């Protein structure tokens, strides 16, 4: 619909574009509202995929002509989406990835070599002649190139769980006792893949108060893996008999630390005490360039109903009840990160980060 008729081409194009623009804006609003509401545990991969699709729509249909304008547009929308639910760091990560893609594509079209657009380094400090990029030159093929790159990222996203699971046989050996906590789909795939060729036992900590560990145990036992469920309080007691601890995580921070489900720090400390290796299975899109600092924006508290039900009416007035969802695990407790690009030590995370994101984008 729209006024099509004699008149300048741009006038005819405007109403259609404006409608697409408002539809897009509605979709972003709906996405942000869904994030804000929380509710069921969204799968990180799904959140990442939805974010990328939205960003692709913005690149495709948004009103912009220069790279600089596109980056500002993406940054604004990105800020809106991350503000809705700061604990969903995958949203921010995808926005930063797209910004880096735009910089790279612009650089390639502009004819610059890959090296010169690197982050701050002593080398760059000494050899650069002048000011930084201003992204002002318009390139008509930029739109198509960026959309192509985002499509590649979506394809990469599909394969992350399989890439991680493929490495399972190197790390799990026969007759081992593996411990895990809660329910992580990545760890589930990892263990299932290893179970096809090896025989081992799994102990699952139930991870109160939501007890997702029960679901994990049911799924693993369907694959004929010998599984035991135990309460979180028994973690330390059982740890001496465990060979490896394999866990998933919500976020990997820039210093190699984790934001994982509540109870993981206890597990990590128990593993450290017994010198048991702690392996974290997480895809690269969970790596966030933020450091754990004052903001503490990664914390999420949900209804304390799970801890102390509302039926306990009388005492509720006299006490404070909290139900935090996440835990911070410092990098010294972690042995290895297994991601879709291979295994890495926590001290190497800074390097992976510099490949995925540009330092100017760390602060959205």
């Amino acid at each position, binding site marked *: 619909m729209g006024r099509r008729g004699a008149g300048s081409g741009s006038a005819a194009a405007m109403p259609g574009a404006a409608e697409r623009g408002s539809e897009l804006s509605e979709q972003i609003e709906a996405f942000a509202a869904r994030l804000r509401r929380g509710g069921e545990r969204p799968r990180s991969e799904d959140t990442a995929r939805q974010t990328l699709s939205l960003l692709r729509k913005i690149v495709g249909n948004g009103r912009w002509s220069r790279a600089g304008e596109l980056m500002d547009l993406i940054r604004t929308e990105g800020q809106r989406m991350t503000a809705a639910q700061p604990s969903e760091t995958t949203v921010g990560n995808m926005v930063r990835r797209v910004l880096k893609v735009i910089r790279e594509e612009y650089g390639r079209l502009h004819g610059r070599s890959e090296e010169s657009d690197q982050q*701050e*380094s002593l*080398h760059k*400090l*000494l*050899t650069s002649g002048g000011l930084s990029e201003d992204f002002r030159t318009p390139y008509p093929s930029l739109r198509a190139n960026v959309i192509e790159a985002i499509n590649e990222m979506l394809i990469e996203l599909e394969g992350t769980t399989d890439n991680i699971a493929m490495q399972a046989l190197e790390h799990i050996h026969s007759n081992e006792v593996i411990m895990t906590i809660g329910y992580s789909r990545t760890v589930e795939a990892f263990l299932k893949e290893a179970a096809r060729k090896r025989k081992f036992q799994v102990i699952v900590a139930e991870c109160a108060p939501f007890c997702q560990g029960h679901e994990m145990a049911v799924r693993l036992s369907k694959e004929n893996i010998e599984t035991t469920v135990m309460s979180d309080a028994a973690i330390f007691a059982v740890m001496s008999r465990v060979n490896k601890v394999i866990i998933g995580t919500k976020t990997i921070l820039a*210093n190699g630390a984790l934001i994982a489900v509540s109870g993981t720090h206890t597990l990590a400390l128990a593993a450290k005490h017994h010198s048991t290796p702690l392996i974290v299975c997480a895809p690269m899109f969970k790596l966030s360039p933020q*450091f754990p600092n*004052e903001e503490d924006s990664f914390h999420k508290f949900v209804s304390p109903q799970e801890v102390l039900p509302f039926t306990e009416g009388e005492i509720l007035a006299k006490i404070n009840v909290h139900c935090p969802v996440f835990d911070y695990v410092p990098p010294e407790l972690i042995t290895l990160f297994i991601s879709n690009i291979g295994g890495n030590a926590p001290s190497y995370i*800074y390097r992976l980060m510099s490949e995925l994101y540009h330092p100017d984008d760390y602060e959205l």
Partner: protein
Amino acid sequence: SEENYLIETFRAQLRDDPDVASAVAAIRALLGFLKQDRGETIQGLRSSLRDAIDTLSRVDSSVAVSSGGELFLRFISLTSLEYSDYSKCKEIMIERGEIFLAKVSLSRNKIAKLCHPFIRDGARILTHAYSRVVLRVLEAAVESKKRFSVYVTESQPDEAGQKMAKALRKLNIPVTVILDAAVGYIMEKVDLVLVGAEGVVESGGIINKIGTNQIAVCAKAQNKPFYVVAESFKFVRLFPLNQQDVPDRFKYKADTLKTGQNLTEEHPWIDYTSPSLITLLFTDLGVLTPSAVSDELIKLYL
């Protein structure tokens, strides 16, 4: 003579602007030296610059001057690789040198911006001796309306801690000066340790005023984060494995070294803190873990 002119420029810089880092003053003096150099070849220029750097080290033997000098030499080599014509080369060098100096003057502000979010409201901070970068970070934290208190070690033998305390009181920050020996006692009360550095070595460790290593060991024992703030021109190409490995020319003041007496009777002015004790380094290149420091140095020197 040229030598005296160089020393005078250097000393004048430090006198006129007490806030300037000694490495920056050294680089500025060397740039001035470059401008009035009469040589015709790169080799000649490099050898006269080496002599100039030696001269400056004889005035101020700190690690910072040495790292600033190394950086300047590296800067010359990199530029000379790009341009073969000497006069064009020299022009570019002078231009880039000015740009570099302009950039490093902003580095303290960059670091302050990166570091102050790590200071929570109500934090108790322990710092050591007198560091202008730490002062700038705390100033930025005050500007962002945070309330915190600071413990400063007295830092003998020159009582640099008193100087730091005075500067902090001017910013209306509650400050307590403690004995160097009281660090182990006070550590349970502090939330984080924040120190500057005179030099950052290849392993990611730091060289700083004597006493820093002790503080780092105490902080590790009590699980307190140990943060270091340093500008990127302080990165040096040293890899000490222990305290003995740090060269004597950094440990003692230039005047003491000149007298040539037996150094075993002298007290060193600096010590080496190993990277395993450091949590994070805040530099103008970003927030770095100690393992990332060697990466930066490799990028520059290789």
